């Protein structure tokens, strides 16, 4: 997994450079009475850069090829992420209550191989609970979809 760690270390270094450049170029280092808004971000950026170097060097030295970054379970994570993103994108149509309830049902099918009937009942029950608990009782203005709630 060392290459992932090295990439992460390089990403930290790049974040440090970006922060330093942005702080230096867009934010004043000093203000009227002392340090300006760019003072802390500049030093934070420099610290990130400095700390990234030993991280990358250590990871290059302690290469452990047996540790895998991607495992079969990682695919399951990806499926759940796609499900979440797809549901969030379709919330204007589905409504918040129904959309989030759908995640529960779909998650049960994806992760646990539950029966369709159990999944459908869970989706309906969860949607009703979200609507009444958060939408009605706690008065959170949840986005409505085509079904009207």
């Amino acid at each position, binding site marked *: 997994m060392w290459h992932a760690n090295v990439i992460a270390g390089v990403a930290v270094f790049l974040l440090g450079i970006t922060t330093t450049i942005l702080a230096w170029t867009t934010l*004043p280092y000093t*203000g009227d009475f*002392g340090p300006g808004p760019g003072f802390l971000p500049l030093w934070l950026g420099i610290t990130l850069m400095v700390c990234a170097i030993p991280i990358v060097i250590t990871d290059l030295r302690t290469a452990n090829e047996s540790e895998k970054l991607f495992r079969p379970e990682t695919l399951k994570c990806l499926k759940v992420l796609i499900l979440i993103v797809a549901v*969030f994108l379709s919330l204007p149509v589905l409504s918040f209550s129904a959309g989030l309830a759908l995640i529960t049902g779909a998650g049960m099918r994806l992760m646990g191989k539950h029966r369709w009937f159990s999944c459908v009942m869970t989706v309906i029950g*969860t949607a009703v609970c979200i609507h009444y608990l958060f939408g009605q009782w706690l008065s959170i203005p949840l986005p409505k979809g085509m079904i009207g709630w």
Partner: protein
Amino acid sequence: MDLLHNLYTGFTIALTWQNLLCCTAGVFFGQLIGILPGIGAPTAIALLLPLTFSLNPTSAIIMFAGIYYGVAYGGTVTSVPINVPGESSSVMTCIDGYAMAQKGRAGAALSIAAIGSFIAGTISIVLLMSFAPALARFALRFGPAEYFGLAVMAFGLLTVFGSGSPFKIIVSTVAGVLISTVGMDGVSGMPRFTFGTPELLGGIDFIVIICGLFGLAEVFNSIEEPEGGLLVKGKFKLSEVFLTWQEWVESRWAIVRGGVIGFLIGLIPAGGITTGSFLAYMAEKNASKHPETFGKGDIAGVAAPESANNAASISGFAPLLALGVPGSATTAVMLAGFMMWGIRPGPLLFTTKPDLVWGLIASMYVGNVILLLINIFLIPLFVAMLRIPYSILMGFIIIFASIGAYSVNNSMFEVWIMVGFGLLGYAMKKLKYPIVPLILAMVLGTLVEKSLRQALVLSAGSFDVFYTRPITAAFLLIALLAYCSPLIRIALKKAGYGKASINVESL
């Protein structure tokens, strides 16, 4: 007398039906969450924040405190019968707790954990009552330079108590402070790192980040690395949970020692309850006449860490209430909760909001009694809860995280930010970058910057202020030693000292 009067006032607040209900709900949910895999105390509090919108601040804080120490109790329930710590603070309990379960004494192990937690928790509350107001009075002397030093010391101590690469801990800390700088600068009003996005002008809300880092990220991590474990086929009947006289005699002093160690560790910013339980276990093993029985089902090996983790979870409120500086991820989330209701913890809280502070402290007594009863009489029920599949839990965590993020500004922008932080948290865990420093730094980031700038303004730009003021200098010296601690450890190891090392997985 003042102390007793304040405590009496606290009890009149804590024992109102609404606060009693909130306390019961909090400890019950906390216990439940401690048992369920993949949900920790900070996640629980962050996810349950929207549920408290209709409550008054005192009731909500009482409920959150109940969740916090309820989780410390609940983590044991999985440690004993299935050898999986529900919380990192219960890691040490697994060693002797599981061995006791294999010998058919699972009920006794769970029972001593509950009794030990109750006694140590009570010791800790009594000490907290005396210590926190004194700490608050002392903190009244603090100016911006002292607060800057205190926050930097807390960051430094993370490298002492954390495990893994100290550079990764520093990166996490710096990234946390960096995230706190996003939005309008508090002094000049200039937007920073907003990239023209108006939603970012107010900064990134802490609740949104917590919902992502602890809620969504934990879902991904739990999918990838499920917390397995085989349930010991033991008896979890009510009749099995009572201790023998011999077991009580063997564990009573372990409870007291664990309680005192836990209390002291909880006071240290970034000390954490996991470190407390680890140190209490090591101390008990050293103090025991039969250290060879540790790891083979010694009841003192369950009593000491369990007492310590509960005592530490309570004493962790001292720096939060008296200084406004959280010592752990959970108290950091609680600080966000305080701020959500417009309350800023700190030295003045004891005089401006005595009802809240003393109501909270009194509720801890009440919560401990409720937890003791719950743990003795409902253990069979909680063990049965272990059979809930994660495929069902996962959906509910996502729902609570999404609604928690959405309800901050009633906007989908926050929900997408939450997803982003969920992925960041997942990647950080996978690449062994600790999350706790990030969380603490995000909360303390504003304080660090504000106090640094105020201190420099007051000193007309001179850095002398950081080493000529004794309290600031002491804090910064501790911070410096803490940052050098990895080098000190290496030097001690080479010299043949320091065989035992603190390894706190939670960090």
